[in-house]
């Protein structure tokens, strides 16, 4: 596996004013592997993910280099970075049906039939084949989480960023959904960066774990 396939952070650090959030971080997440970042609240875990996907609040200053599949991400707008992200909440758009939420992630340029087929395939992948026309508010928490994950994957990202997406689910659901996300990411050969509080997440990820120090 080549260096170019993964997500690479080199000497990345974030600061707000004169305060640096954490010591410069260097990390290589190869394709198909999961790196875990742990650290206390306020250590900048989530902010690091926004820096990678390009939605960093302008009050922060980022130094160092972030590259994905050999592309330097500096200066690219979020929509051009191809970094999928999942948050604690599923954030399904409440004004769109389940199918339209999935379709929102599809790349432009596909024809109608292709779009419909991919949405259908994703729905059955989530065991929700008949739920396309439903209002997302009518789905259970686990169902919504699966749709959110598949929506991110339909956008054909080059990496998947996970911002504690399991923490709000109850424990049995959490294990199943975690497996669902990890299986899909590894099937697509994506580098995954997971931010979490929960040591069980790190164990399940079975990759390198980094503790962010303030």
């Amino acid at each position, binding site marked *: 596996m080549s260096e170019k396939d993964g997500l690479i952070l080199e000497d990345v650090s974030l600061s707000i004013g004169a305060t640096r959030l954490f010591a410069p971080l260097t990390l290589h997440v190869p394709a198909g592997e999961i790196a875990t970042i742990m650290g206390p609240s306020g250590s900048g875990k989530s902010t690091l993910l*926004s820096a990678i*996907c*390009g*939605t*960093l*609040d*302008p*009050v922060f200053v980022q130094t160092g280099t972030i590259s994905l599949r050999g592309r330097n991400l500096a*200066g690219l*707008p*979020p*929509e051009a*970075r*191809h*970094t*999928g*992200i999942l*948050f604690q*909440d599923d*954030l399904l*758009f*409440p*004004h*769109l*049906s389940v*199918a*339209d939420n999935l379709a*929102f*992630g599809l*790349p*432009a340029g596909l024809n109608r039939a292709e779009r*419909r087929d991919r*949405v259908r395939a994703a729905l059955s992948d989530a065991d929700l084949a008949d739920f*396309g*026309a*439903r*209002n997302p508010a009518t789905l259970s928490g686990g169902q919504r989480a699966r749709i959110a994950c598949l*929506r*991110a994957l339909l*956008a054909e*990202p080059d990496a998947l*960023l996970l911002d504690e997406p399991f923490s709000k689910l109850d424990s049995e659901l959490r294990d199943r959904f975690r497996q669902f996300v990890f299986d899909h990411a590894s099937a697509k050969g994506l580098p995954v960066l997971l931010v979490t509080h929960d040591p069980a997440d790190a164990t399940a990820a079975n990759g390198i774990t980094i503790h962010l120090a303030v």
Partner: protein
Amino acid sequence: MAVDVAPPWAPAGWWRQMINIRWAPPLTLLIFLGPVGAGLIGTLLPAFGYFPALGGDHLTLAPWRALARYPGVETAALRSLVTGLTAAGLSVALVLSFIAAFHGTVWFQRARAILAPLLSIPHAAMAMGLAFLLAPSGWILRLLSPWATGFDRPPDIALAPDPYGWSLVLALVIKEVPFLFLMTLGALGQVQAEKSMRIAQSLGYSGMTGWLKTVLPQLYGQICLPIYAVLAFSVSVVDVALILTVTPSPTLGVLILRWASDPDLSLQFVAAAGACIQCLLVLIAIGLWVMGERLVARLGLAWIRRGSRLAPTGAGPLAMLGMVTAAGLGISGLLGLAIWSLTQRWRFPDALPSAWSLDNWGRNFDRVAEPLGTTLWLGLAAAGLALILVILCLEAEQRTGHRPTSRALWLLYLPLIVPQIAFLFGAQVLMVVAGLDGHWTGLVWAHLLFVLPYIFLSLSEPYRALDPRYGRTAACLGASPWRVFLQVKMPMLLRPILIAFAVGFAVSVGEYLPTVFAGAGRLTTLTTETVALSGGGDRRLIGTLVVLQGALPLLLFAFAAAAPFLIHRAAFVRKKSL
């Protein structure tokens, strides 16, 4: 990281730079405040004798001497100041004591449900309703006659309009209480009201005392701008004063309007000087108010330090009485005029008409159609334009991360605090020069000025409260900033956007002075017609106009409440095919 944001239809190059959303806030301020400044200068120059079109080609103090010689001008100015301060003081005291006494109770929700619709009723309509209640042949005397008063003909006493300005104060309180109540309610969400109350109560403070001692000090900073706006408005109001003061004892605003519309053009100079005095009156009123604030703050701190836990006796019931009186007078006045619009015969002292009829509506239609049409297109245009500007400003704020400072909020309130007459007079002078007076563009701009701040106040909170992670998720799915804007933010904010639009429309329907000045008498609305008719006795026609004034904004609010639901449902029905 600076990302150049442009709509997908925008080509590269200079055009892309031109429509960069960063320009939205400065452009809005320019459209919005540039003419206010120009208008003030256009007032100031004639006040010192410079008005070439009328032969004034050098600076002189003559207009000020003429103003000082005008009989009764000091009394009128004093009347403006006293009625304005009294109305604002009563409204603030009533609203704050009511909220202190009844927050968290069922009365609180009821008050909100009753006051919110009253907010959208124009001042002139409310004042006409009150005039009908208090007139010699009004509803109150009808209900008391002849059994209690012995009158079988309308007596020769008038509670409204009155020479002292008490009915003016009453009308202002009726109209300002809903505004201040809802503004305070909005501000309560931004301070730690619930937690402070819980702690105060656990330390043994009664509900009302706890609220006054812990919540009010946090809250006041959030509501002082709306309070100053109310104060400035009360000191310089013209339409309500035209309806509820008698000709020999006007307020300063009424005098200025008389001079400005006098066929003797030399009085234009006096009007300009008067408009400057009106500005000064507002400054004096705010100055006195701020001194009052300091005094209350000092006394309040001493009261807090004494540690007394008991509520002021009787304050709660008194606040309730005041609130019920204000809302009751407002609603029954409107109801009375609505009945008049359906009346065929209603003799004194009957409590209700003896013969009802729908004929008034048919007969008055021709009289009403044109102002109705103008009111509609003017309100829709001004609110639509203001809504677009406000949305672009809020979107620019989110993309650049620059939130306006509290000083910028003052700019937003400027047209609400500077007396309308002070810059409208000068703006009209400029419009005459530009050939725009009586033209629809000038009229839409004049309304935009007062509509825009309210739309901003209504929409900024929900716009900023939308979870930014929705936009981030969409961006990470590959959506451009404009796609996020159009397909994620706009649909999710549909309801607050429509409500803000309805708020703007309601404000436009109620405007009097901007229409009089920018419309140059050629363009009339329901509100200007109502005020023009207030001296006469055709209550059937006035009733028709007032019903329309109240109904238009309420219809739009109903639409704003229902539309997102209908659109939302339609969206899910349509997608069943997929």
